[in-house]
C-alpha cells in the first residue's frame, strides 16, 4: 500500500475509533465496504452456509459498530474483525440444531479417498455437527481449512495450546461417535 493510501486508511480508522458524530458513519461505511468480503469469506469457512454467513457478516459489523471505542489502533482492523466474526459464529452455532441443512447433502470432495464411502462421509459430517461449538470451530479452521494454529488462536482469543487441545478433543469425540455407530475410522 502506498504511503498516501496508508495515511487515508489510518485517518479512517482513527475517525472510526474516536466515534466523532461528524465523521463516524462515513468511516464505518468505508471500513464495511473494504472488509465485508474478507469477513464473509472467513465466516463461510466456519459455517459453510451462504445465507448464515451473510447474516453473520451483518451481525459482525453491528458488533464492530458498537465496539468502535475498543478498537486498538496498534492492531490490524481485519484481525480484530475476524475475532469478532468468530465469536458471532460461535454464538450462532450454539443456537443451531445438531444437524444443520448443510450436512444433509454432502458432496464428494474433488480428491476423495475411494476407501471412504459417501455413507461414512455423511456420518462423519453428522457427527461433526454434534460437536460442541467451541471444538467445532477449532477443528474446522485448524484441520479442514488448514490454518496455522497461531491464526486460529488469535481469532478465538485463546492460546495456541488451547487450540491444539480443542482440536484433539474434537477428533477424539468424532472417533468415539463413529465407533458407537459401528464405524472404525
Amino acid at each position, binding site marked *: 500500500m502506498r504511503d498516501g493510501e496508508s495515511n487515508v486508511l489510518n485517518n479512517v480508522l482513527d475517525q472510526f475509533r474516536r466515534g466523532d458524530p461528524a465523521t463516524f458513519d462515513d468511516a464505518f*461505511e468505508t471500513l*464495511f*465496504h473494504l472488509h*465485508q*468480503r474478507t469477513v*464473509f*469469506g472467513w465466516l*463461510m*469457512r466456519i459455517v*459453510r452456509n*451462504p445465507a448464515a*454467513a*451473510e447474516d453473520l*457478516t*451483518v*451481525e459482525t*459489523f*453491528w458488533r464492530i*459498530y458498537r465496539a468502535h471505542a475498543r478498537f486498538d489502533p496498534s492492531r490490524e482492523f481485519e484481525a480484530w474483525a475476524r475475532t469478532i466474526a468468530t465469536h458471532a459464529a460461535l454464538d450462532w452455532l450454539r443456537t443451531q440444531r445438531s444437524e444443520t441443512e*448443510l450436512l444433509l447433502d*454432502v*458432496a464428494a*470432495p*474433488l480428491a*476423495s*479417498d475411494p476407501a*471412504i464411502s459417501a455413507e*461414512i*462421509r*455423511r456420518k*462423519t*459430517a453428522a457427527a*461433526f455437527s454434534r460437536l460442541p461449538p467451541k471444538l467445532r470451530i477449532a*477443528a*474446522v479452521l485448524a*484441520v*479442514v481449512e488448514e490454518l496455522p494454529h497461531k491464526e486460529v488462536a488469535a481469532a478465538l482469543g485463546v492460546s495456541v495450546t488451547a487450540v491444539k487441545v480443542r482440536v*484433539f478433543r474434537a*477428533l*477424539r469425540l*468424532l*472417533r468415539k461417535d463413529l465407533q458407537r455407530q459401528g464405524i472404525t*475410522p
Partner: protein
Amino acid sequence: MNAHEEDRMKQLLKQALPPPGDTEPERDLWPAMLRRLDARPAPVPWFDWALAGGLAVFAVVFPASIPVFLYYL
C-alpha cells in the same frame, strides 16, 4: 488415540466436510447493514435518565405525589 489414529481422523474430517463454496457474498451487504443500523433504538439522553431517577426518588420520599404524576402522564 495415537498419532496415526489422529491423522486418520483428520483425513476423514477433511473428506467429510464440503468445500465452503463461493467465499464472496453474492450481493453488497451494505443495504442489509443499513437496515440493521436503522433498527437500533434511539439513545436516551443522559438528562432524561437523570430526570427519571430524580422523579423515582421523589416518589419514594413523597408517595402521595404518585397519583399526581399519573394524572399528568
